[in-house]
């Protein structure tokens, strides 16, 4: 394994320490619960927005804590939902009179930890609601699974509920907005290589020299099918077919288009994907009103990308437009 890592057991803790050291004024790190929170949270006048999930998806979610985004992120170990205890303590720490919104990606472990953590916090008098994100269209047969996974589309849910909470919306309203954005958001990804979890020390799965995993999950879960690599444009066509055909997005729609890197793919390639996706959407009569190209929700060092569409309306546009500050920043 060739990684910048000390003891893999300290991977998450050391990363979180780094995030806190790089943002001393804005972020606080609570080592006992793997917690990164805003220094000004909780605030009585707003709903606290918290996201939990496994680690290994950075910048999601510990690096999108900040004004107009998350009040706190409570990550588990790499690819593992946080223990319910962390969720419970986080909910208590972030409790405000307006309540706590717990955002969770739709995976068995995360849902169980958050359900249990929320129940325990509620028993302590904390008002908390759970909002589940499930944007991944790769999962087709929901009867046999826990349903669609939450992947890069969660960025838009966070951005929108973060803005609404910042503007003082109450918990019901924040929940309504989150569900609304989740309902118009769809994603699918493709892996060119497997990722290497630090504690495992070797690639999570094997992909042949010209094989790709189409519809891959952000924990390296196999996707719809393993197939031969194709030209970038052809891959975009197939991703777009799966994603746009799902809601479906129709001629006349205005959308946000995100090309999200999975960790090992350089941003130059993401823009090559973006170019073709933008043009193909235009060809379908769908206008790209907002563009997002970069890393939002990764899978460690996996080479690959996902494509997300969000159907915009005035309300969503306004929320996505609202100012925000995050730990991961260019300047």
């Amino acid at each position, binding site marked *: 394994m060739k990684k910048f890592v000390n003891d893999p057991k300290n991977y998450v803790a050391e990363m979180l320490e780094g995030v806190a050291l790089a943002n001393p004024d804005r972020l606080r790190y609570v080592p006992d619960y793997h917690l990164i929170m805003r220094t000004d949270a909780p605030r009585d006048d707003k709903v606290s927005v918290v996201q939990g999930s496994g680690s290994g998806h950075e910048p999601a979610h510990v690096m999108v804590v900040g004004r107009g985004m998350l009040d706190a992120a409570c990550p588990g170990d790499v690819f593992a939902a946080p223990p319910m205890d962390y969720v419970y303590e986080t909910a208590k720490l972030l409790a405000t009179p307006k309540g706590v919104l717990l955002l969770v990606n739709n995976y068995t472990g995360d849902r169980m930890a958050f359900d249990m953590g929320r129940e325990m916090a509620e028993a302590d008098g904390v008002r908390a609601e759970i909002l589940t994100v499930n944007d991944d269209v790769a999962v087709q047969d929901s009867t*046999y699974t826990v349903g669609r996974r939450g992947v890069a589309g969660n960025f838009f849910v966070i951005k929108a509920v973060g803005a609404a909470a910042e503007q003082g919306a109450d918990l019901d309203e924040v929940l309504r907005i989150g569900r609304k954005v989740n309902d118009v958001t769809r994603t699918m990804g493709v892996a060119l290589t497997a990722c290497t979890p630090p*504690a495992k020390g070797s690639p999570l799965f094997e992909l042949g020299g010209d094989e790709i995993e189409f519809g891959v999950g952000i924990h390296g879960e*196999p996707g719809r099918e393993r197939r031969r690599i194709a030209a970038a444009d052809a891959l975009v066509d197939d991703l777009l077919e799966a994603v746009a055909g799902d809601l479906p997005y129709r001629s006349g729609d205005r959308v946000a288009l995100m090309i999200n890197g999975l960790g090992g793919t350089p941003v130059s390639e993401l823009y090559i994907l973006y170019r073709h996706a933008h043009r193909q959407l235009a060809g379908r009569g769908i206008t790209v009103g907002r563009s997002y190209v970069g890393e939002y929700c990764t899978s460690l060092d996996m080479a690959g990308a996902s494509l997300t569409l969000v159907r915009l309306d005035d309300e969503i546009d306004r929320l996505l437009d609202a100012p925000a500050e995050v730990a991961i920043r260019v300047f």
Partner: protein
Amino acid sequence: MTGNAVPGVELVVRSIAETAVANEKYFGDLDAVVGDGDLGYSLARGFEKLLEGWDGLDRGDAGTFLKRCGMVLASRIGGTSGPLWGTAFLRAGAAAGAAADLSGAQVVTMLRAAIEGIKARGQADVGDKTLLDALVPMTDRLEREFAAGAGAAAALRAAAATTREAADATRGMVAKRGRASYTGERSRGSVDAGAAAVAVIVERISETWQTRGATS
């Protein structure tokens, strides 16, 4: 498994914990086949935590002891396994109650309670290719052995063999729960990591019981 309840339970729990820690890599590799490879890490970290606080755990009675263990596991194991294993220990502890003495039948009752807890928590059942596909056949076998009058050591030996077979048999199943279920048909052909972990653990408990197994 008669005799002072806590020493027996302690021995079992300690075996589970040590096996989980010792098999971190093996369980992780099993989970990597169609899952995300963290099962070994999650269990090892949780049971390490349990062993760290081992001497301080309340040993008032078997039920209390198991519930304390369940609290530590549920709050320290991440992933899907945390809530599942934590629930199992909590439910087993609740079923044990304050009994000073655990009969074979009581042990079976505790295991049934643990299984119901896992089913409820995971919305899963036998045949979904999860650890239930090892735990349930194991419990059935134990029940039969005890009913036929077997001692704990013999019953465990028989149950360990059954659990191994049952875990191996998950190879032919398609996952319907948990992360492996996303792969659909592709999950066929490899054993379920959780079921295999249970088999390894039960084998270890059985071995330990043969040599250090107290009064029976």
